[in-house]
């Protein structure tokens, strides 16, 4: 009897997992079909590559956001953080050029600083939330304003731009391809795999889930709640800095309008993917699909002039709602005990 139960268990589990991921996957598939019907060029290699590359930014940030949200937090500062990091990175690289020259060293220095800044910014968010005992929403709303205005300040209201000499060296990080896939896509893949492993195969992921599910249970289970929560923000910061590292060579500049609304997009990607906003249940796979869905919506809307440009937002809103509705995967069925 016990044996029988055990086997059904594993099978059941796998099945349920499938249905859960199937939601966002179905939504993405439908979008692709719509895109193809609107314009067959949608499925051209060039467009698919563009699409994947573009998803990389939001996707990488959203992987970090999955940890924060799973552990019951929220981070509204990611967009501004990206802008601020990009800005500082550009300043550093431009001034390093004088000593190091426009070479690899300068670019590496810039990237290294970006990572340090990301870790530091995430750590600040984390510490203010946990040690300062201030609601994450407020902390990150505050730092969002701070980072955004800092980049404006550094850029003196205008745009910070990377020296053209460095751009040549740095360009391949965005525009280059390895084995037929653009470099940003590789970064996205690596971040996704690491994120998935961290969430599903390590104690850290388990701790995040436990904290989001019930913080006092986590505390009584010998989990260092504050430390783990801070770590999620640090991971988020790392992801933001990685996204920035591949963003900067794309446009070679940063300004007050860099990364506006990325926080909402990242959170939306996470939730479209099936992670629960209140925490306790995180799915990296879903997040990745969520990021792809969001980018595809934007892409499709660039594809057609059937609808007024002004109504882009309406379409976007409708599609997001429908996608999440599909994602529930229990159409019509009552889920009494989940409410």
């Amino acid at each position, binding site marked *: 009897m016990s044996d029988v139960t055990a086997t059904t268990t594993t099978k059941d589990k796998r099945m349920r997992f499938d249905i859960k991921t199937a939601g966002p996957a179905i939504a993405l598939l439908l979008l692709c079909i719509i895109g193809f019907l609107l314009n067959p060029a949608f499925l051209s290699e060039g467009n698919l590559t563009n699409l994947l590359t573009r998803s990389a930014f939001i996707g990488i940030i959203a992987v970090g956001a999955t940890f924060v949200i799973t552990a019951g937090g929220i981070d509204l500062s990611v967009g501004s953080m990206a802008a601020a990091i990009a800005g500082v990175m550009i300043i550093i690289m431009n001034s390093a050029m004088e000593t190091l020259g426009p070479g690899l060293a300068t670019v590496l220095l810039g990237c290294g600083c970006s990572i340090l800044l990301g870790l530091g910014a995430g750590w600040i968010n984390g510490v203010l939330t946990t040690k300062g005992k201030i609601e994450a929403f407020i902390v990150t709303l505050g730092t969002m304003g701070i980072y955004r205005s800092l980049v404006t300040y550094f850029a003196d209201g205008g745009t910070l731009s990377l020296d053209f000499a460095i751009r040549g060296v740095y360009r391949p990080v965005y525009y280059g391809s390895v084995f037929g896939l653009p470099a940003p896509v590789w970064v996205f893949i690596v971040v996704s795999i690491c994120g998935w492993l961290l969430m599903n195969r390590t104690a850290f992921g388990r701790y995040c889930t436990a904290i989001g599910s019930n913080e006092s249970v986590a505390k009584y289970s010998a989990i260092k709640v504050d430390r783990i929560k801070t770590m999620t923000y640090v991971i988020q910061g790392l992801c933001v800095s990685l996204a920035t590292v591949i963003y900067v060579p794309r446009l070679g500049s940063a300004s007050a309008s860099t990364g506006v609304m990325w926080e909402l997009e990242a959170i939306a990607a996470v939730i479209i993917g099936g992670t629960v906003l209140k925490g306790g249940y995180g799915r990296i796979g879903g997040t990745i699909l969520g990021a792809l869905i969001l980018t595809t919506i934007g892409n499709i809307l*660039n594809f057609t002039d059937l609808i007024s440009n002004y109504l882009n937002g309406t379409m976007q809103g409708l599609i997001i709602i429908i996608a999440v509705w599909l994602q529930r995967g229990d159409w019509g069925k009552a889920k009494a005990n989940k409410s």
Partner: protein
Amino acid sequence: ETIKIGVSYPTPTHAWAAGMNWHAEQAEKRLEALYPDVDLILVNSSDPNAQASALEDLVSVQGIDALVVLPFESEPLTDPVLNVKKSGALITVVDRGLSQPGIEDIYVAGNNPELGRVSAVYMKGRLESGDNIVVLRGIPTLIDNERFDAFMAEIEGSGINVLDHKHANWNRDDGFEVMQDFLSRFPDIDAVWAQDDDIAIGVVAALKQAGRDGDGMFVVGGAGMKETIKSIMDGDTLIPVDVLYPPSMIATAMDVTVAAFKSNGPVAGRYILGATLITPENAASFYFPDSPF
């Protein structure tokens, strides 16, 4: 086969951009009717990153032959536009120049420093040394800086005091609130440079609320909103003049770009539109009642 021309500009979120959008749509209809083999594709984007994506899509999906682009910002879009150029398309840049020279084939633009300068010249003409003005700026961007710096450079040495300057984000509500606070703070203000007609509307509302709209007080906006032009035509004294920054420049750019394919002569080059001072005398010629701006 058709000539595909992509037209990319920021999503209209304020009136000037809406006017530009209107002129672009008018031009599209007009040109497509005129030349059946020309297809103009209008795309707007909400931030520089999205605009870069839209440019990629115009190339990879639509396969455009020419691009008319009003960059969200100069720096970030330089590389993406360069990529479009590499696909072989003709490039027309509107309003904000790219930060690398030689990418665009055609350049059509208004003149931001000139807008600031012309405004300042008008102020100097109306005010005396020792008079006080306040400045409401736009969104912190290069454009705003250019206008502001040119204005300040021109004012310098005239003896006119610029009491303070704050960003009002080319937005009526912010214009209203910032002006309210300036009025509480400074008992003596003789004129306001609002830089933009939207901000000016908020400023005027605040002046009227505080009852400080008399005594020769005046407000100078900018861009050429139709309501403002109308009231100048009607002889309003609170906003006596406006400085033109025409949203129709996008239509000009589209015309020139189509002409590059259709006319025989060379059309490449730079077309810089002036920052004309609109006064009651010349206002009628800048008035488009059907435009949203």
